[in-house]
């Protein structure tokens, strides 16, 4: 099927219009390294009771998800990586990362322990006393205040838990009850009377923040296995902003220099290459927006580098056309031969770049993946602009007088 030239031109104009429109309407998604935030990698540890499996990790992921959700961080990312790792990204998180780590990585196993007549100081590790109830028996937990206005955590047991709790408090009036979090005592009150309704207060040494955090942890539930922090990256908002500004400048300079080079070296065909290059930039920005590809620091380098690679196809075609002209062919047949004979080497060389990006995407993480995506995207688009768009432009301009002279090609 042959499509008429006007239709081809129209299609390209529409594509470019759409790209620019999408790019302007939708802001590009920035990676953590550019927008700032916290990136955490946790590794689940085996316990004597539980070996970490994919299933365990799914549960951990769900719990972390609910913990983070209650913090109100926008667009957090919680991803599994391998069999026992979780990657947590908190874009725009600018507080001390330690509080995020505490919230996410804490096992948060709450236990109510029977210490009999023994009072246990807050902060001591308690492992020997028998456990009566755990956080799993809770229905709800929220922040409240005691009669002095100090923050406390109000807990409510589920029906079975309430029954056990009522029985225990009835039988142990005047004795101590130790409440531990991950084995450390946070409160050790005296039981004054039976608590029949399953409602209680934990009066630890809380600030409003720490009480809120504990309530969040208790509502989300305890992690089945402990987590170990193995990687933490925190980027302030200024680093990314500086880099983005600098790289926009670098990109503009790169485009201008390359356009200048093509113009000087290839004269009129240089103009055609330059128009294709601008089409390339427009399409690239559009597709980056459409695919919501995440722009990272190395990704920016890939984008700018791809501008230099995008004209490679044009160089190959133009040099070929020159050769055909020197063989004595007419201008039009030289152009056609130049394009026809350049398809194979252009495709081959771009496919090798695509292969490399694929390998990189498979093995890389985070910012390196961002690089691979941008490189692949740029390469794919450049095949289209270097061959199709340039060819159409040649056909479009072929009626012009200037196209009749070999000077067009810098000869």
């Amino acid at each position: 099927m042959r499509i008429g030239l006007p239709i081809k031109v129209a299609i390209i104009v529409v594509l470019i219009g759409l790209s620019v429109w999408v790019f302007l309407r939708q802001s590009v998604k920035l990676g953590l390294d550019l927008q700032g935030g916290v990136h955490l990698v946790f590794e689940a540890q085996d316990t004597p009771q539980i070996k970490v499996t994919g299933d365990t990790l799914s549960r951990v992921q769900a719990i972390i998800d609910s913990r983070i959700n209650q913090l109100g961080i926008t667009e957090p990312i919680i991803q599994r990586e391998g069999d026992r790792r979780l990657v947590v990204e908190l874009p725009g998180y600018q507080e001390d990362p330690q509080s995020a780590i505490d919230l996410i990585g804490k096992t948060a196993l709450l236990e109510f322990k029977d210490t009999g007549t023994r009072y246990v100081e807050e902060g001591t590790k308690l492992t020997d006393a028998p456990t009566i109830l755990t956080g799993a028996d809770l229905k709800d937990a929220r922040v409240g205040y005691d009669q002095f206005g100090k923050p406390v955590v109000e807990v409510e047991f589920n029906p079975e838990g309430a029954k056990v709790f009522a029985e225990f408090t009835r039988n142990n009036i005047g004795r101590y009850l130790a409440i531990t979090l991950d084995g450390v005592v946070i409160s050790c009150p005296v039981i004054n009377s039976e608590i029949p309704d399953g409602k209680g207060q934990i009066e630890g040494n809380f600030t409003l923040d720490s009480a809120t955090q504990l309530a969040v942890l208790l509502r989300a539930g305890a992690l089945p296995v402990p987590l170990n922090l193995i990687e933490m990256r925190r980027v302030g908002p200024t680093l990314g902003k500086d880099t983005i500004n600098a790289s926009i400048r670098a990109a503009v300079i790169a485009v201008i220099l390359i356009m200048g080079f093509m113009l000087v070296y290839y004269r009129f065909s240089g103009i055609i290459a330059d128009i294709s290059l601008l089409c390339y930039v427009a399409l690239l920005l559009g597709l980056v927006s459409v695919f919501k590809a995440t722009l990272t620091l190395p990704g920016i380098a890939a984008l700018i580098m791809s501008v230099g690679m995008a004209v490679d196809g044009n160089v190959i075609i133009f040099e070929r056309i020159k050769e055909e002209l020197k063989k004595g062919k007419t201008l039009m047949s030289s152009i056609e031969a130049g394009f026809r004979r350049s398809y194979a080497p252009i495709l081959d060389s771009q496919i090798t770049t695509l292969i490399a990006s694929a390998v990189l995407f498979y093995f890389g993480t985070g910012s390196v993946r961002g690089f691979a995506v941008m490189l692949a995207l740029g390469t794919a688009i450049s095949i289209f602009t270097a061959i199709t768009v340039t060819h159409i432009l040649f056909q479009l301009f072929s009626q012009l007088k200037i196209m009749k002279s070999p000077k067009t090609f810098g000869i």
Partner: protein
Amino acid sequence: MGYFEDSKINIIKHSSIWLGVAVLVIISTVLLFFTRGLNFGLDFTGGTLIEYKLGKSFDNVGEIRPLLAELNVESSFIQKTDENGVIIRVKELTNEQRDAITKKLSDNFDSAELIRQEFIGPVIGQELRRTAIIATILGLLAQVIYIGIRFKFDMALAADVALLHDICLVVLVFIITQKEVNTPFIAILLTIVGYSINDTVVIFDRIRENLKLKPKDSRETFPQLVNRSLLETMTRSINTVLTTVIAVLAVYLFGGSAIRDFAFGLMIGIATGGYSSIFIAAPVLVLMRKKEWTREMENIKETPVTPAAPTSRATDAGQPAAPKGKVSTTKRKRR
């Protein structure tokens, strides 16, 4: 502008020089890798890194070191990034120590903004090393397979030798300059693997085409043909590399400090990628086909210059199908 194809430059004739240099590069990379070594960054070594933007500019890290010493922070590495930027790398750092450093710096330099903090556990580094090696080897293999399918197997091997050289050269430059090597280094290596082969493909494509178009009675030897192919494609080899280098150079010069080393690595890789296609891949190919073309050369010497060899004599000699059969096999091989 001059044209390379009209010049008398003979690249292939001096193959031993180019290949000698290449071998030298590879050997010294291996030697230096094990003696001096790469300057592995936090991603590979593990530890903690904090980066500050200070309120005042400073001359050198000597101004910062004593401040850290006062806080009893054992810093393994302090680096100046900008006129007012500093990176401090330590093995271990508590939050209290970090806050103390922030305070100390802001007391001494008007203000200190913590713009980056990273903690990398020791497992990550080991994994990263393995990933880098596996990814690079797989990338090389994938290219051999692709080029092997599209061209010929010996061409794929020749291209891979050039690739290996490019990777070594970039590693060598990073060893010599002692620039820090972090995760993005893997991206540099793979980009080189992808890009360096671009020019090789264009050259090999031309060699293949010239072989196909070669008249039967041509007296051009294979090394001559490769040299001609190189010269014919020289302008595009230079220009394609040049445009890409221009782009990366812009990133290197204007893209900001966070991205500079990365751009530097890419630039070296792209430049050497262009160089190696011409001066390594093609000579290696000539070397690999030496048996083939020395025989060819002897044939050329033996056949008399008189173009019209009487066919009847060949038929009389009892081997009429031989020349025809030979042509078809070479043709199949060359495809």
